[in-house]
């Protein structure tokens, strides 16, 4: 009897724990969205509905500059990372060669290494070794460094689910490798590539730590702007920018999921 009773209780207890954990994960993001519409002057409590902070957001030229800068950086990163990611994933999946495992494992370094270490290494590299000016060049290179592995692993994961018989059929029928890729494999991989591209965008757009180290003076991206404002305490404008980040990230993940679903 005792066992049977326990069996019924266990899923409920687990469900409650899970619900609490999910709530714990979502609460801050939801609070920031809620408070971005609050007329409270510090943006830390609910004092009634307003849209004035969004109005302030669009008239603030510093925010506009930072937003444009972040977007440009993220778009360039998306293009380069996805391109390298596709080529690499294809090579890692299809070819056998010495050192394959090494490249696979090494690609994990920029993802696994604590951000401060990567950031410090890149900063010293840029300023003391290659003399790449801090600003757009250093930020974009750094973003490509930590975004490409993401693209590689996203595409590699999807490649395992593709029906490779089509490619073989094309080649058996006499199409060369190039033609096969353009006509068969490429279109098959397109959803995976698009999904990776859409995922890289927030990965780059949201980054603060590495960007903060390598940005130098004057290249304020949106997260750096937020950080600089935080020193003056809480302001409602941070909530509106925060809402933008939450919306952009969720949209990107949902779109990436939808692209994949379609196939």
């Amino acid at each position: 009897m005792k066992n049977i009773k326990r069996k019924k209780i266990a899923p409920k207890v687990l469900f409650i724990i899970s619900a609490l954990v999910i709530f714990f994960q979502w609460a801050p993001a939801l609070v920031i969205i809620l408070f971005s519409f609050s007329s409270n002057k510090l943006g830390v409590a609910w004092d009634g509905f307003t849209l004035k902070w969004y109005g302030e957001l669009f008239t603030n030229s510093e925010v506009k500059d930072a937003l444009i800068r972040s977007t440009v950086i993220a778009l360039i990163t998306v293009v380069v990372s996805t391109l390298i990611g596709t080529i690499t994933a294809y090579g890692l999946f299809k070819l056998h060669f010495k050192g394959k495992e090494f490249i696979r494992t090494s690609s994990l370094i920029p993802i696994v290494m604590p951000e401060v270490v990567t950031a410090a290494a890149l900063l010293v590299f840029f300023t003391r070794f290659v003399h790449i000016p801090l600003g757009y060049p250093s930020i974009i290179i750094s973003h490509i460094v930590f975004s490409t592995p993401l693209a590689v692993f996203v595409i590699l994961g999807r490649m395992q689910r593709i029906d490779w018989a089509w490619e073989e059929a094309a080649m058996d029928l006499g199409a060369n490798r190039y033609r096969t890729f353009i006509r068969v494999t490429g279109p098959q991989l397109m959803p995976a590539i698009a999904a990776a591209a859409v995922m890289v965008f927030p990965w780059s757009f949201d980054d603060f730590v590495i960007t903060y180290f390598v940005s130098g003076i004057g290249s304020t991206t949106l997260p750096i702007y937020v950080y600089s404002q935080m020193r003056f305490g809480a302001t409602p404008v941070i909530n509106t920018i925060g809402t933008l980040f939450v919306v952009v990230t969720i949209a990107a993940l949902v779109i990436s999921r939808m692209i994949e679903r379609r196939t």
Partner: protein
Amino acid sequence: MEVSENTSSSQNTGVVKHKKRFPVEVFLYISPITILLVVFVFAPLAIILYFSFLKTGLFGEIVYEFSLENFKEMFSGGTRQVFLTSFYLGVQTNIACLLLGYPIAYFIARYGGKWKIFLISLIIIPSWVAYLIRLYAFKTIAGTNGIINTFLMDWGIIDEPIKMLYTSGVVMVGLVYTWLPFMILPLHASLEGLEPCLLEAATDLGAHPIRRFFRITLPLSRGGVIAGSILVFIPTMGDWLVPALLGGSKVMMIGNLVAHQFTVAGNIPAGSSLAVMLAATLILILYLAIKWGGKEAMENIV
């Protein structure tokens, strides 16, 4: 190469095995990532390793001669304390993430049903939002005028706000909040592979649910536990934003020291040696974890 009967099996059918493989082709596909890794990952790491053995002169200039000064300083007083704090916070966070993450991973794997993907998405999505923003929100909630204090005071549970920020407790909660999803995902992956018939068999043979958990479920999800611990411990011990925003100057972690040396003090040798020491500690821990956990852990990561 023959076309296999099972068209959907990809692993082997997809890989072209010609007798002669043009190295040119390998070169074409692999050179971009190799250049990226060698130039922008390995070289920068080698350079901070080099700089960590230099020292700073009287006027803040870098003295280009071999010195162990930075490392000696690390083992004395303040810095050693910061290292220990980081390590303890890493361990505590890891345990908390395991205790919180296991039930939810188990729930999703066992009872998720058709909601599985939805529940996993609910855990992944917030973790992707810029963590600077999430921590700012966290701070708003836990602050003196934050929601928690306002709520408790409105209900008359407390008379004056509890001071939560800038304590090691709140830093740990912040770390758990930030890195918990990285524990749940590999745990879920390993529990997903658990055969339900094994549990049924154990029950039929009369095993108590608690015994069943410790004898079957837990050992079989060892890979997930180790993988999750690796994915949580490394970023936790090396975290900077969580202690910087929630700990202020009261709770310092190595990340704070590294960031301070590079972005405020501009002492490259000292900052490099801290970063190198941090990376070395984590690589050692990673090595031990993989050695102990074997391949099963890596399978759950990649």
